[in-house]
């Protein structure tokens, strides 16, 4: 069902928010992806994951989108407040709507796990020891080996400019995080149509 922005906002405000500010982790060069996935797995029905981050985490939209999570993003001064919530779980009058805090419904257990992301759905490769164009070749090969739910995390020594367009062609998307001058973390996910 379709809600307008104001409806979403008020739903989010009245729901139980789990707040996760990942900016300190990123600043230290630690990838918060596992952290975020962990928190998502712990979310109860009706909860909202409130992510605070310094850039728009588009790969997360795809990854969580394919697990049934919608998102609502607000940006102020380059700070992004991204709210992830289970589709339909905040709608008023929905029989599977907001559960009172702290109470898991056993009947929901199976459904929730269906969408819970598993840690081994992240494949990591390190291409920093490879000379161009080997990194691109390795990444493109890996893309064909993994399935659509998997996220490819590449430890790269530069931002792979020519890779973006190739990945787009193949139906994948990439976002690069600059850790330092010789270290970029590139998160590659399946494009959601």
């Amino acid at each position, binding site marked *: 069902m379709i809600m307008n922005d104001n409806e979403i906002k008020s739903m989010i405000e009245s729901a139980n928010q789990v707040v996760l500010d990942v900016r300190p982790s990123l600043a230290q060069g630690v990838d918060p992806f596992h952290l975020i996935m962990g928190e998502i797995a712990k979310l109860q029905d009706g909860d909202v994951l409130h992510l605070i981050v310094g850039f728009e985490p588009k790969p997360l939209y795809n990854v969580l989108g394919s697990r049934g999570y919608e998102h609502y993003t607000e940006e102020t001064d380059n700070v992004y407040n991204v709210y992830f919530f289970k589709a339909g779980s905040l709608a008023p009058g929905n029989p599977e709507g907001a559960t009172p805090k702290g109470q898991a419904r056993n009947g929901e257990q199976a459904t929730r796990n269906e969408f819970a992301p598993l840690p081994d759905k992240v494949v990591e490769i390190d291409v920093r020891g490879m000379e*161009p164009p080997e990194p691109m070749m390795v990444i493109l090969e890996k893309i*064909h*080996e993994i399935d659509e739910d998997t996220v490819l995390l590449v430890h790269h020594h530069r931002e792979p*400019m*020519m890779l973006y*367009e*190739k990945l*787009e062609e193949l139906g994948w998307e990439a*976002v690069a995080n600059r850790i330092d001058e010789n270290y970029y973390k590139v998160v590659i996910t399946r494009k959601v149509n």
Partner: protein
Amino acid sequence: MVPGLATKMSPSFKLVSTYFISAIFSLLAAVVMMIVDHTSLKGHHFSPVALAVTHLMVLGWIALTIFGALFQLIAIILKVKLWSEKLAFIQYAFHMAGMILLVYSFYNFNFTAIMVVAGSFLMVAVLIFLVNLGVTLAQGEKRNLTGIFLVASNVYLFFTVLLGLLLAINLGHPFLPGDHLKLLTVHAHLGIAGWIGMVIAGVSMKLIPMFTLSHGYSVKPAWLVFIFLNSGILGFSLARIAGFSDAGDYIFVPLIALAFLIFFYQILLILKKRMKKNLDLGIKFSVFAYTALVTALLGGVSFLFISNGDASEEMNLTLVYGFVVIFGFISQLIMGQMYKIIPFLIWFHYYSSKVGLKKVPLLKDLYNRDISKAQYYITNLAIFVTTGGMLLNHETVLLSGLIVYFAGAILFSYNILSTYNRRSDDTVTG
């Protein structure tokens, strides 16, 4: 950092190929010209054949390669998309027309209107390029060392071609103050040390560590290079224009030479911090190229100070100096880089989409490595022999060197151009 939807950063394969293939044919044409007219290659450096060959090499082999490479590298190094491909093709048309007319007029010692037309076409081509690049760079997000070298390089490009055009007009209708020959040297150094030198420095600072996987080296020497090279070229040019060439030469030519030596040192610093231990062919070409440059510089500077004033000796050495810089340094550098760039572009254009779907050739399968090694040694040897022939004023040695070089150049062209044939080779066995 998120790229936009459907971000096609790199230019079309057709654009870059057009420039590179034209560059390769210009090289072959220039060498054929040298062989056919080798007797004019000793003596007065103002000889029509020497001028024709120089401009065919610089405007054809070197310039077309630089433009093609910049179109490709801008996306990777500066992370922006070239503003207009159409302009790049229009630039190509004006450039080729201008170059062919110019070489023709030099070769026939025709310093009339045709040379001015040629120079004007080239000026138009350069202006189109500067507009295209200017708009592109304005959209870029970073100011880095390479970007600064590239901006400076293009300023020199503009003034080199402008001065060339003015000199062409001057030949038919003298109007420029000062000695035409002295201004000619300014034109040559603005072009070679300014335009070409700056672009080589800027691009090398990004490309070499990219291929050798070097990290953690100081870039302070590169900044010194920038300061000394600019001061040297500007000082040299202004001194000559103002009529103080003798004093100016003694101060600023060593400064220019020093700048290149410091650049050589910077390259060594980068190589010292490399992860990739063995040096491949592209790097080996570069090593020979930089060694040739250092030799030419040391030779040129020492000549400046110990010259005995013999005019024909001076002209002969100028020719040698020019040959070593253009064929020994710049040309070998380009050959080495082409072995890296062109096979990769072919691979990216024809095979990268097929990765994982069928067996895709490796980069090194796209060209013949034995031929590339042979060609490397053949051209190096040929450069030595030709230089010897020029220094000794020995026609047979000179001609032999040129023929051997031509053989090496043919091998190079065949090897590089045959990578284009691979696309029809869709099924890869083994």
